[in-house]
């Protein structure tokens, strides 16, 4: 970013904290950007003629006589088709040694869509993973996070989902990515030959944490360009939103705000909602779907970050290692896709909702049987069958290495029902039993 001629230069800083500095200036707009000795900063508070700036890189080494230039605008991103295939940092500057892109300059963090102009999401996103497609079907225009402990392969699953989903663009917003994960995404996309469909905004662990705050807005501004201007189906991947929230907490702490639950700022819900609610199906055909990652600490979902996220997103996907089969599965109890009702049994076969619920219910019976077993009680015949079913169900449907279409998933479920249970035990509408149960027994 270069300074224009005749711009007023301020050289007297009155206050410096770890993240902010203040000075006397006039005619400054709220949210405006500034350069402090070349470091990018943003106006966060104005009181009379005292302006407080948040310096994204941190204030290390900033002298009280630093040169400060106000840029007269909020953070922006240049948008055009040239974005495709490129890698950027949190400020929207290229990090792939290729030239700056040309395009229209747009303010990031723009206005919300008028709710009456939204279209109800109705297009299924097939991933081939039964734990998702069968139990927690995704729909375009949805926003959903993976809730996972840091040791789980969430980035791998997310990359898989992104590549299998039929979308026009994939936008990666990486916050606090390790350099290894960054290279992993780069490689996967490269090897799949889809790099021209991908736009990446990356802040790695090597970059200052406060810079992360710009990543989601950058990624979503690019997403809105493709979804609104080009009517494209855009999938946005945000990883890891926990690190984003941590950065929010750092800033609010340094601004002396009163923390609420878990030292998070009181505005956490609104801050996260502003990002996730950018997921939308536009009437003209374009859509923005957000798949995010929220890492948990020891599986605790009552922590303020996953808790607020859960209230905002349309469900969540839980990964868990199933020790019975030695694979990672999508946990059927704690995972949920709220929008699945819009497509299951409508875009998929009619028996989908009932089969899905029956299987999960039987899986719950198996969990009860397991508790009984652990407490040293005898198992009934039904318990034994439920346990055997659960193992098969986990291996053939819940495991994340499954890759089949939804009809095959349903057929598999019916086969397992018939193998272990009688029709009255599965509690499914008679008309579906008549249609699908017999069929399976004759096989």
């Amino acid at each position: 970013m270069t300074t224009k001629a005749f711009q007023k230069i301020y050289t007297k800083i009155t206050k410096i904290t770890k993240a902010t500095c203040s000075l006397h200036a006039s005619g400054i707009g709220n949210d405006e950007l500034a350069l402090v000795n070349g470091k990018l900063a943003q106006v966060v508070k104005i009181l009379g003629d005292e302006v407080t700036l948040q310096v994204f890189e941190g204030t290390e080494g900033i002298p009280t006589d630093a040169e400060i230039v106000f840029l007269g605008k909020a953070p922006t991103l240049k948008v055009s088709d040239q974005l495709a295939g490129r890698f950027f940092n949190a400020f929207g500057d290229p990090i792939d040694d290729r030239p700056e892109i040309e395009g229209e300059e747009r303010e990031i963090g723009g206005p919300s869509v008028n709710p009456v102009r939204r279209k109800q999401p109705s297009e299924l996103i097939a991933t081939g993973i039964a734990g998702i497609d069968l139990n927690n079907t995704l729909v375009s225009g949805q926003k959903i996070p993976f809730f996972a402990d840091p040791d789980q392969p969430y980035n791998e699953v997310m990359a898989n989902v992104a590549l299998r989903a039929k979308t026009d663009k994939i936008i990666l917003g990486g916050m606090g990515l390790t350099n290894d994960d960054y290279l992993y995404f780069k490689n996967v996309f490269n090897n799949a030959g889809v790099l021209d469909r991908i736009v990446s905004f990356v802040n790695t662990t090597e970059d200052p944490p406060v810079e992360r705050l710009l990543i989601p807005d950058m990624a979503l501004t690019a997403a809105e360009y493709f979804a609104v201007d080009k009517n494209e189906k855009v999938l946005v991947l945000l990883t890891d939103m926990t690190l984003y929230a941590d950065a929010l907490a750092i800033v609010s702490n340094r601004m002396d705000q009163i923390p609420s639950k878990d030292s998070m700022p009181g505005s956490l819900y609104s801050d996260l909602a502003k990002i996730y609610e950018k997921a939308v199906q536009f009437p003209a055909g374009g859509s923005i779907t957000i798949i995010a990652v929220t890492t948990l600490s020891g599986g605790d979902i009552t922590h303020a970050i996953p808790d607020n996220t859960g209230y905002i997103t349309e469900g969540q996907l839980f990964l868990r290692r199933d020790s019975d089969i030695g694979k990672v599965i999508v946990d059927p109890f704690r995972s949920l896709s709220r929008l699945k009702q819009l497509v299951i049994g409508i875009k998929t076969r009619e028996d989908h909702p009932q089969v899905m619920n029956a299987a999960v219910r039987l899986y719950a019976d198996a969990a009860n049987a397991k508790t009984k077993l652990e407490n040293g009680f005898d198992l009934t015949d039904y318990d034994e069958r439920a346990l055997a079913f659960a193992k098969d169900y986990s291996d053939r449907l819940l495991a994340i290495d499954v890759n089949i279409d939804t009809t095959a998933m349903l057929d598999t479920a019916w086969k397992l029902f018939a193998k272990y249970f009688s029709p009255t035990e599965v509690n499914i509408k008679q008309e579906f039993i008549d249609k699908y149960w017999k069929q399976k027994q004759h096989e």
Partner: protein
Amino acid sequence: MPTKGKVKGIVSNLVTVSVDGAVSQNEICFIELGSEKLMAEVLKVNGSDVFVQVFESTRGLKIDNEVTFEGHMLEVILGPGLLSKNFDGLQNDLNKLTGIFLKRGERNFPLDEDKKWNFKPIAQVGDEVEAASWLGEVDENHQPHKIMVPFVMEGSYKVKSIAPAGEYTISETIAIITDAHGKDFEINMIQKWPVKKAINVHAEKPRPYKLLETGVRVIDTANPIVEGGTGFIPGAFGTGKTVLQHAISKQAEADIVIMAACGERANEVVELFVEFPELKDPHTGRFLMERTIIVANTSNMPVAAREASVYTAMTIAEYYRAMGLRVLLMADSTSRWAQALREMSNRMEELPGQDAFPMDLSAIIANFYSRSGFVKLKNKQTGSITFIGTVSPAGGNLKEPVTESTKKVARCYFGLEQARADSKRYPAINPIESYSKYIEYPEFDEYISERISPQWISMVNDMRTLLQRGKEVQEQINILGDDGVPVDYHITFWKSELIDFVILQQDAFDDIDAVTPIERQHYMLKLIMDICKSDFNFVNFTDVMDYFKRIINVCKQMNYSEFHSQAFESYHNELQNILAERKIKQ
């Protein structure tokens, strides 16, 4: 001369303004920003410094920008044409806003100025009238929309003239009324009211007693809510708050339904926009949208307007109640509103209460719930506002300030339970911890005896007792093991499961099962309780489960069949055959 001011400080959406004249608490002002005018509300005054919360983004706002005060609090505009509209929290008609994205500073008039309404006079020349007296009525989507003496008019008046039946727009004069000093006032169909003040135009507010049918069995049968009652639905995310609320709003026997989508997901509001114009009211057969008003301030819309949205919705509800209508108001979710209060209180650097919420949170919630209720109007007619709010407790922990404050004021508690939701037992209302205080009202007992049956309440109480007992024996079975308890314990447990599966659980996505009229609920409850009161012959506990699973299966098929249809009756016969196998005849 309106009071003017200049911007002196900005922190997010809290702006300090230095003023040149008088301002009042909660007064509305507009801040100029280029060609846009940002609406804001006064929160605190300190000398000539006034703290205002801006209802929109303050990006680009500068020191010394001009501020104009309006001389009134946040108001809504009331009149015919509110029904079937989609408003934002500040009562802008969302459908009239231009473009795909919301534009800062864009506002519009919430009613239709050109539409002609078919007016019929009610009052006659010479009648004594006062605020809220009915002067006439227009037909608004088949509802008798009363044109009333504006609520702000104090004292009594005489009708000097009244317009003859005919077609009028909302701004045409339909009556002239004269006060005691002979001063004339022209009345049209529009009036304004400040949202934070309750509209108190009724004669009295008796205890409510009439069942408000919702078609949801676990509510109507086990935890009934009444016309003019209050209830709340706390539940962690994923427990089905919104599905339940939507089900109630679709099916409840109310004249007017107002949905305040407060700080929740935009796609859920879209669901209302898409479904309501197509769905029919099960009671009248007309489209649901005709009787519905949606006030949408979704989580990504400006935070400050979230608080306003629930008040806007409540004020509109009070307006329709004054016409003698039954209004159902749903707010999803009151926790988001409380969070908006917290964000603001935080920015104002007030001393925080529990979980950083403002100290007066409890009082604010109590005050809001108390605006609902069943009223007798001065003309002896009745009207009601039934209010059901959802609460989103942080971390699913019900010991948090919003849940606790709400529990003190709401009379029905529909507690959603994570464990029930996890095992897909929907609606996930905990049958033991949830309650309705109305079931203890003698007025309700009297009403329900006549409406359904004199045995109803005792049947419901028996059911609740059995559910409780079922839970106790289940715990004992878990401790002692299946064969460590008498067979009777298994029978009791499975009877409670029968109630759970057939009465409490309900498939909101099945066309037939989704809505159960009270007559059908009565039939099924009687059927199930008769089974529960019977003795069965079992030697082995393993047979108990298999047998009751068969009963549950047949009863569920009954729930999925049209009431008294051939399929229904044949399942009923099948049930009798199963029962005959093991039932001990007395």
